């Protein structure tokens, strides 16, 4: 039997089947449903672009909170997390193997804490009473008179989400960049210095980044995806969807709010489609920023 398995179908059927069922079809279905009114009980009713029009003109929560929050969150966490990953990888590549391995494990481990572990951990740190670590510390030092409601106060929630997300941003992309730097031929640097390269900055921009551009691109995609996935943390930290005064409400939470709490699936699908478009656009934008084709 195995002796006659030459056709590509033997290799692709399982993957293509699963890929279609759980990625392609849902995406297509989201696009389709976004043009309907669908409350999960009646059959979807075609309403054209009305969901999108409402999203941009009627949905005050979306325009005033969700979209600005998402933009702010993404434009801080994405680039800063990405640059931090590169910087740390760059430093790690220049120290010996053993300490590098230990540091790499420590730096990567936050990206493995998902859901409950992450929420429990940070809720203890930022807890709104005196047993919260941050509050206890500040009370102890006399910086504040009474505990601050970090997680339920709209003033703090977003910043805490950004800190927690940055904390966990050294993920797969970070490992890829580390491996990329380690693989650069040492000789390139020596040659460049003989040709008159003067400092570390030139090194990074003329040798390091161009030599590992493929890993940089991979890291960028991973950073974008991680940014939009981890955004869910706001609901877990504050313990409520919607988050207090929508302070930490991002698009993923808005989708859940409309889809699974209000059962307006058509509308939620329109938000999903918009989110996918945003992610795609940002990834492509990053590619051209990094100079994909040279």
């Amino acid at each position, binding site marked *: 039997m195995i002796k006659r398995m030459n056709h*590509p179908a*033997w*290799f692709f059927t*399982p*993957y293509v089947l*699963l*890929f279609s*069922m*759980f*990625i392609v*079809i*849902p*995406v297509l*279905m989201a696009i389709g*449903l976004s043009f309907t009114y669908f409350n999960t009980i009646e059959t979807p009713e075609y309403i054209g672009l009305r969901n999108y029009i409402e999203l941009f003109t009627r949905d005050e929560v979306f325009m005033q909170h969700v979209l600005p929050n998402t933009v702010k969150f993404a434009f801080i966490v994405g680039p800063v997390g990405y640059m931090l990953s590169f910087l740390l990888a760059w*430093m790690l*590549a*220049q*120290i*010996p193997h053993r*300490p590098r391995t230990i540091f790499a*494990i*420590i*730096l990567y481990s*936050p990206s*493995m804490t998902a*859901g409950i572990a992450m929420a*429990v*951990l940070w809720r*203890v740190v930022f*807890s709104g009473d005196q*047993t*919260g*670590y941050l509050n*206890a*510390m500040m*009370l102890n030092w006399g910086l504040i008179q009474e505990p601050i409601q970090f997680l339920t106060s709209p003033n703090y929630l977003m910043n805490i989400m950004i800190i927690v997300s940055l*904390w966990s941003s*050294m993920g797969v992309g970070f*490992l890829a960049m580390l*491996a*990329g*730097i*380690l693989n650069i031929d040492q000789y390139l*640097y020596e040659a460049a*210095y003989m040709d008159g*390269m003067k400092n570390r900055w030139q*090194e990074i921009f003329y040798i390091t980044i161009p030599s590992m551009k*493929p*890993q940089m691109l991979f890291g960028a*995609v991973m950073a974008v995806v991680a940014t*939009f996935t981890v955004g*869910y943390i706001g609901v877990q*930290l504050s*313990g409520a969807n919607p988050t207090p005064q929508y302070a930490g409400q991002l698009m993923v939470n808005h*989708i859940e709010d409309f*889809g699974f709490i209000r059962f307006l699936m058509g509308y939620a*699908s329109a938000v*999903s489609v918009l989110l996918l478009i945003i*992610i795609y656009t940002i990834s492509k934008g990053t590619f051209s920023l990094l100079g994909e084709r040279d």
Partner: protein
Amino acid sequence: MAKFSGMKINPKRYHRSQLKFFLFLIPMSMFIGLPILFIFSHAFKPSNELYAFPPRFLVRVPTLQNFIDLVNFAGDGGVPFSRYLFNSVVVAVLGVFLSIMVTTLAAYGLSKLKFRGRKVMFEINTLALMFVPIAVTIPRYITIARLGLIDTYWVLVLPLIALPVGLFLVKQFIDQTPNELIESAKIDGASEMEVFLKIIFPIIAPAVATVAILSFQIIWNDPVGPNLYIDDESMKTLPFYFQTLAAQVGGPGATGGAGGAAAQGNPVAGQGMLAAASMIQFVPNLLLFIFLQSKVINTMAHSGIK
């Protein structure tokens, strides 16, 4: 020639020029690592330490009480803890195994087989790297319901098997393997499948390890499957139990809705149980990564998007 003073990649030993990196890396990894250390420390704290003021970072009198509470609390709800654990382990093992099979097969096809549409397929998969599952939770649910998969073990596994990142990494890795190896085996009469099983699979172990880690993390941590696709309490997995627990006992800092629930539960025991739960959720990921990290780094060297 003057002594080379620029970037020195992968140095063999410590040199004082590396001091500046250590001066940055040590505080940085302390900031990043302390919360991780805290997961362990907190899980073993007795209740008087959990609520001590001022709170202490490290546990002084370690106890297993939190884990015992965690296990007993599940029993009170009708489904024993061992059942959740069993489900989680079965689903993770099955999922990782299938994910490796499905992904490596397709990766070999994309890398070494010649057929029409190969390029397009790879492009689609690269596009799917940007796919964020959480964005299409709803249509995914509808698809799964239509397929009649609700309330089966399969539903906890199947949606998470086809990993675009996994396929991408393995494909790039297989690209590095020499074609001569494959050609000579084919001259001896081996089929593509035989080449894959006997020659390629054994030499792509690092990439396989990487897929294993990635898919384990996704499956082991997945709260969506047991929440949405499973009604039967006895088929749910640990992430679901932990989430329910968090909602029932109310985490620290939770107020409003969750705080009201906390009044019914026991918030003191609750925090201890949640800490123990976090540790159970986190530790398998960490151990797997520690054991396989060198293989992962090796795979990542070929991870570039070209």
